[in-house]
């Protein structure tokens, strides 16, 4: 069994504070992390490898410093990783990113499943994994809360999708792109041995030429959306009104205030 886990390095929103706003965090920030949603994808890949034999490997597009997040994934137990990095990839939109990932996947040889997190907390588009599936022409299973059954010989998978209206059970052929939710299982911590091994790992890199792509398919040139303006959200001008008094009395006051707000 071979699982390819799509993983992105992102800023850590836990570092946001009065002195570290979103713009500063994106530009400089502190240590980058494995995109929180992707940790669940890594966990899923590792669990499948344990249960069925085989391996989970990481595939990341990003700047050279993404090796930090990749090493976290390796320390968790992934058996290999490839970093897709090139100046030409800068400012790729989700579809250009999907093109780059797809070209790399097609060079990976046989694989059984591609795993992804629900979205990346920086771009927040939740588009790339679907687009990889669309470009590869394989099924996409999103919002997966549980893998109910998987048979790598018969090449079938049955999953539970936690969607707006309820829980849907879907059976699909493999390979497929499977995007998982937190319910799939808490990610493990990197082991001590894993951290030592990952620290020494040499991460292979691939660029534009290695992937057989042309410069007008990637980066800003290969993208159909641009984001010329990124700003802080308007400051919320909320004046806190503390309601004081014993519970019954305070409750009466608050109820009247909320009725006057017309939010009930």
């Amino acid at each position, binding site marked *: 069994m071979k699982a390819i886990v799509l993983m992105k390095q992102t800023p850590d929103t836990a570092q946001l504070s009065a002195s570290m706003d979103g713009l500063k965090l994106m530009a400089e920030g502190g240590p980058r992390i494995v995109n929180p949603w992707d940790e669940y994808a890594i966990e899923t890949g590792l669990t499948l490898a344990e249960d069925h034999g085989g391996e989970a490997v990481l595939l990341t597009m990003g700047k050279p410093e993404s090796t930090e997040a990749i090493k976290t994934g390796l320390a968790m137990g992934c058996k290999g990783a490839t970093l897709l990095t090139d100046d030409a990839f800068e400012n790729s939109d989700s579809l250009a990113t999907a093109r780059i990932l797809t070209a790399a996947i097609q060079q990976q040889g046989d694989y059984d499943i591609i795993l992804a997190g629900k979205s990346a907390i920086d771009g927040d588009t939740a588009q790339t994994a679907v*687009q990889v599936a669309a470009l590869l022409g394989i*099924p996409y299973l999103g919002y997966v809360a549980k893998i109910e059954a998987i048979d790598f010989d018969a090449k079938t998978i049955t999953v539970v999708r936690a969607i707006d209206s309820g829980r849907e059970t879907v*059976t699909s052929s493999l390979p497929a792109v499977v995007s998982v939710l*937190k319910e799939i299982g808490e990610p493990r911590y990197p082991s001590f041995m894993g951290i030592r091994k990952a620290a020494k790992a040499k991460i292979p890199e691939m660029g534009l030429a290695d992937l057989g792509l042309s410069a007008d398919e990637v980066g800003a040139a290969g993208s159909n959306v*641009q984001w010329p303006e990124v700003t802080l*959200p308007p400051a919320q001008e909320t004046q806190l009104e*503390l309601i004081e008094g014993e519970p019954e009395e305070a409750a009466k006051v*608050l*109820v009247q205030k909320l009725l006057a707000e017309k939010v009930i």
Partner: protein
Amino acid sequence: MANIWTLVEHRDGAVDSISWETLAMARKLADKSGGSVTAVVLGDGVGELAQTAFHYGADSALLVDDPALKDYRLETYGAALAELAAARTPDILLMGASDKGREISPFVAAKLGVGLASDALDMDLDGDSLLVTRPVLVGNLIAKITFSDAKPQMASLRRRVFPALEPDTARSGNVETVSVTLPETKTAVTGFEVAEGEVSLNDASIIVSGGRGVGGPEGFPTVKALADVLGGALGASRAAVDAGWIPYSHQVGQTGKTVQPDLYIACGISGAIQHLAGMKTSKVIVAINKDPEAPIFKYAKYGIVGDLFKYVPALTEAFKKELGK
């Protein structure tokens, strides 16, 4: 003159309210540019939905009525919409940023090789070209998105940021029934369990949430009682979910749901940045917390510093009386 399409999303004929909100947004853009709005209805036995779409502001409708579209599947719905859009090239193609919309739209954009902005907070036109405002970094930044000339320009609209039009039953329009070539399917829906008896966080106009201060699973009925009397949904912080007090489906925040209700009542929630990211744009926030220094109070309009197990039941009782329940 922007020719705008919107997808009417439904489950077995029951339309998701986000579709009418999206249709209203399309109407706004079309009116600005002297263009038109076409509702796209995909399904099995769903012809009536096209009529309803006229009531909500569509000028015309494209209907694909096919037994193969009975169950929603990305591969069939995505292929149908991509085929229609490729053949007729609307200028703009919109849908709701629902679970379905957020997978159909990137699928179609990839098949057509066009640009997409998901989860829009607002949309506008620059000439006939779409402009989208959307959150990034879980709402800690706002990005303006512009599009290349590749058509259609695509976007999905976040729930509850733009109101649907009041339905006007006098409105009507032309329904064009079309057939599409659907692909051999590789997926099959084999079961569905409706989330019954629970108000969905996505649609809720009122949410009452509990956090670490709730103390344990036995504390949540107190919070839920308030949600119930208000007809609201029950939410939770990551701390409460990770402690196993309440299922993940209730989690609001960075690795849970992003919500924007009219009223958000946070009970025993300190207001970690990851939780705030999921709810701070709620219209009115009420915080009930023992700790007067809790960050949640910075975002709250009304606050009570005190024991939630005293104040929340008092609020529930007061609302019961007031609302005659």
